[in-house]
């Protein structure tokens, strides 16, 4: 199953509930398009809920990084919520865990946006 993305609005924060696999191809391009569309609509406070992401490869990691950079460059913030152990391990191995702000509690994550 490739990535399925559902959007929710919590105050001025847009939460993307991502489920499935973020791998090269459909999964990673779907995430890229979603973030691009949000930025195009002026939504710059983005929270990626990855609790249902079963698999992410190096291209998926690249899309997370690319999304983070795009949002940051436009003066916004992109943060991560509810990482599975595998995704967390992957971000630690690649030293990206220190780059992203990561939360386990959605309310706390939403409050953290300035």
């Amino acid at each position, binding site marked *: 199953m490739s990535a399925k993305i559902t959007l929710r609005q919590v105050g001025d924060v847009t939460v993307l509930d991502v489920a499935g696999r973020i*791998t*090269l*191809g459909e999964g990673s391009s779907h995430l890229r398009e979603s973030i691009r569309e949000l930025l195009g609509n002026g939504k710059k406070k983005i929270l990626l809920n990855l609790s249902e992401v079963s*698999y992410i*490869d*190096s*291209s998926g*990691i*690249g*899309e997370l*990084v*690319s999304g*983070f*950079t795009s949002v940051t460059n436009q003066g916004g913030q992109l943060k991560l919520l509810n990482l599975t152990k*595998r995704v967390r391990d992957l971000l630690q*191995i*690649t*030293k*990206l865990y220190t*780059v992203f702000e990561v939360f386990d509690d959605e309310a706390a994550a939403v409050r953290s946006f300035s």
Partner: protein
Amino acid sequence: MPENTSSDHKIIERTLDSVLESADEAEQLAVEAAGRIGFPEEELHKIGMAVRESVVNAVVHGNRYNARKKVQLSVCESEGCLTVTVSDEGEGFDVGSLPDPLAEHNLLQQSGRGIFLMRTFMDKFEVRRLARGTEVKLIKCLEGKR
């Protein structure tokens, strides 16, 4: 699709098209073989991911999605070790010249982590230039067999 078997030695060979779906097939074959050897669940995930990254590299960077070019996959189970070989028909690359994805100035690069993950997840990662293409060999052994 040759499949040579003896009591402790089994080789599966496949010729894969230069499409992304080939990574799914290769990952599945490698994970099944690793499962038969007895790797635990978390190691199966790492092996599958390393093989996926290798085949994606072969399809995308090696063969550049060229339908006339193929990816050769070989999966060998032997004495507690799994050896996966992935060959493409591309121009090849110099592993030594690849940027370090963990360097501070590279952390926000979108790409360049595939080979790092293969190296991290497997016991051995070897690259060999072929007359036409590149061969990547990935080896992982059960604890106590290394």
